[in-house]
């Protein structure tokens, strides 16, 4: 059976497990209808011109993993940022793992979407925010149709969350290929501050497909700092749909580190709904083999006096392919916008491919919008200079690449995350040097 048909027919089974008389369920049913009409994206769609999901969709995925699989902390500890104290929301095959998690209801809610969707206490927040900014496109609709579990983070006014929050989704799928559809809702009220680290990790050699949707609401003067670490194994594919809505003077930054996985597609959308907003979108991509990473960003400037900064660096080796499609829309009212977009790529193999499409759509006249996109190589002379001074070629190369990607790392605010990323980069580049010397 085609995956699309399988998903649609399994919806009935899904309904058994949820409250079908709720408003939420109406949203789900509508979204399913939408997905039924649209189907999976194909290369004919402009937004999917360079990324084909065909091979990934051929797998026979199990949609509802049977039982809860227990995993030992020792086995998965390395996937956590474990050297600092954090809140943790951990899911194993889409099911919440209370053993690995550390949640709280103390002055804020860091818990599960499934309980937020059903308990009356959360009704107001859910009604105000759930599925309000998620697009009606095919994969987001598919996620909405099956939306039930994920992280629910609600930070009230004037609260500064004292430690970062980690959201980790493990796939065990020992017997079958597994498809997961986590759904996260994050609301940061006025003047609050929160840091979040998100990771998807497959623990199996079987294929895994994750279609994740995250909605983030950043209220007036709130600050959300989000890190996505994508270093999954080679059989895992990820479609990450993130939607951010910012109110005036809100700051939100999303850093995406893509090092692993089969096909990784990041749809990152920012909507600026007030003045003096700052949006920061940054990413480092280092891939090899036949990996494919596709970054699709959208920054929608709706109100005046806002800023957006995008900086994406990519290093591609072997037969890997990279896509960057950045779109900045500046509405007529959004005067004095300052939008900046930078995308630099290095190809280190003849078989690697990069497709870049930095787009600007501007309807206001008093704006500063610029984008730069380069594709090139590392500087041979710099390499020679270092070799002359006794640095082996491999290390010299790695140093240059690290320097190339460093503009993104500079703005990482959690030192442990920075250290982790640095280690992953060193590992990717096959060197054993600490870059932060």
């Amino acid at each position: 059976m085609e995956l699309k048909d399988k998903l649609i027919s399994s919806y009935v089974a899904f309904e058994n497990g949820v409250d079908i008389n709720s408003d939420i369920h109406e949203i789900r049913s509508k979204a399913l209808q939408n997905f039924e009409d649209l189907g999976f994206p194909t290369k004919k769609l402009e937004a999917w011109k360079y990324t084909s999901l065909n091979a990934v969709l051929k797998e026979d995925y199990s949609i509802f993993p049977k039982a809860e699989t227990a995993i030992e902390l020792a086995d998965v500890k390395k996937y956590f940022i474990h050297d600092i104290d954090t809140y943790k929301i951990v899911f194993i095959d889409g099911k919440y793992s209370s053993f690995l998690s550390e949640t709280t209801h103390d002055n804020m809610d860091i818990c599960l979407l499934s309980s937020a969707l059903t308990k009356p206490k959360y009704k107001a927040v859910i009604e105000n925010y759930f599925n309000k900014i998620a697009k009606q496109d095919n994969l987001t609709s598919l996620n909405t149709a099956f939306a039930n579990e994920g992280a629910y983070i609600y930070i009230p006014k004037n609260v500064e969350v004292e430690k970062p929050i980690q959201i980790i989704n493990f796939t065990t799928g020992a017997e079958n290929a597994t498809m997961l559809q986590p759904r996260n809702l994050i609301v940061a009220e006025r003047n609050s501050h929160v840091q979040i680290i998100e990771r998807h990790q497959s623990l199996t050699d079987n294929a895994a497909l994750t279609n994740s949707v995250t909605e983030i609401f950043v209220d007036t003067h709130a600050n959300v700092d989000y890190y996505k670490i994508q270093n999954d194994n080679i059989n895992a594919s990820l479609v990450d749909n993130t939607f951010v809505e910012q109110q005036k003077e809100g700051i939100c930054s999303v850093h995406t580190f893509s090092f692993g996985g089969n096909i990784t597609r990041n749809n990152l959308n920012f909507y600026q709904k007030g003045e003096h907003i700052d949006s920061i979108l940054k990413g480092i991509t280092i891939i090899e083999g036949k990996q494919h990473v596709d970054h699709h960003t959208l920054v929608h400037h709706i109100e005046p006096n806002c800023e957006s900064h995008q900086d994406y660096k990519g290093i591609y080796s072997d037969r890997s392919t990279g896509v960057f499609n950045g779109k900045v829309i500046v509405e007529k009212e959004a005067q004095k916008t300052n939008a900046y977009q930078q995308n630099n790529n290095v190809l280190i193999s003849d078989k690697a491919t990069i497709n870049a499409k930095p787009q600007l759509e501007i309807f206001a006249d008093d704006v500063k919008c610029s984008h730069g996109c380069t594709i090139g190589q590392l500087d041979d002379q710099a390499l020679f200079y270092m070799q002359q001074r006794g640095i082996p070629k491999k290390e010299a190369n790695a140093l240059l690449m690290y320097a190339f990607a460093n503009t993104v790392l500079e703005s990482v605010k959690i030192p442990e995350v920075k250290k982790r990323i640095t280690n992953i980069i060193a590992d990717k580049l096959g060197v054993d040097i600490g870059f932060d010397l």
Partner: protein
Amino acid sequence: MSKYTEDDLREELKTKEYEYGFYTDIESDKFPNGVNEDIVRAISKKKNEPEWMTEWRLEAFRVWEKMEEPEWANVHYKKPNFQDISYYSAPKKKPKLNSLDEVDPEMLATFEKLGISLLEQKRLANVAIDIVMDSVSVATTFKETLAEKGIIFMPISEAIQEHPELVRKYIGSVVPTTDNFYAALNSAVFSDGSFCYIPKGVRCPMELSTYFRINESGTGQFERTLVVADKGSYVSYLEGCTAPQRDENQLHAAVVELIALDDAEIKYSTVQNWFPGDAEGKGGVFNFVTKRGLCETNAKISWTQVETGSAVTWKYPSCILKGNNSVGEFYSIAVTNNFQQADTGTKMIHLGKNTKSTIISKGISAGKSQNSYRGLVQIGSRAENARNFSQCDSLLMGNECGAHTFPYIETKNKSAQIEHEATTSKIGEDQLFYCNQRGIDTEKAIALIVNGFSKEVLNKLPMEFAVEAQKLLEISLEGSVG
């Protein structure tokens, strides 16, 4: 002295009438509206074409019938009814001319209004003009001078008769009949155009130039231009357009093919100023053009365009850099005003080693217009050391217009070096203030700034054309360009 502000300029832009909108009454020989195989055959017969040409057209027509009009461009318009257009219109009086004195005086008056007196040009400007008026060439000058060098420059319909081997070899080789909707239509029904062949090692001593004009109401203009520069030759080709004011939308779907063989160089410059529609966005020309050049080893093709007219422009002059060390260039100024929409840019396809391309695109939008740059830079996996530099700058005047950039960059080779940058800005108050302080009034200051903004492209135009380009910018952005 009253203060001249950007608002005044906008006001003036809105009210500025199309100066070159007039209509010459020349009896024409017109086909019934619509297109089908019989019409295609009839056009071919009218032109007295050989069998292979008729077949080629029919093939294109059959392909076209199956195609759909493209919708991906960032333009919105009421689609033309292709069965409501007359596909052939030729001025009835078509004498074979021996000298300019025999040209219809009425037609001469038309050109006079356009500011190109043939006599004057012949005497002073040293420019040979192959005048195309409603699809049929009427007069060709300097033919003898060119013939001495072995240069062939004639209407394509004559070239099909006189040099069938050359036309047959190259027509459709760069833009195949199946390329796109408009190119297929053009291939089926094109009525005339220009053909140019520069023999081996010849440097064309003058700028070749053609004037396109849409004259007869309700006729589409389907021009076909074919320029072949044989090994080691050089030619600079100019193309300029103006059209009379018309109420209903007119369709123009031209195809231009350039072939630069080894070590050859072609410089192709266009100034386009077709009727853009009035201040309410009524009328105007639809300009759907396919232009493409092929570069063999060490060859160079350079496109320069100044686009100020047309209600809707859909145009992407491209270079296929097939040979090693070949070079492609694209310099463009696109000005849109009122309700004009332009979706224009270029494609640089790097296939050979050490190929280079440069893209400089300047968009100026005013009124309620939409101006898009859409470009593709593609580096093939065997294109070692390919180099591209792209720069797209937009200047916005007023907050009702839009400027858009859609660059596609596809690279399959690690040695490629690609840079792309784009900026969007308006004329800064501080810039104006600086000029005012130094005694330059606001009008002159705006002129200065716009001129400076477009300078990189204007500089690339041949002298003869630069004057005209300046003139056209004046019409589009009256009072702002000195």
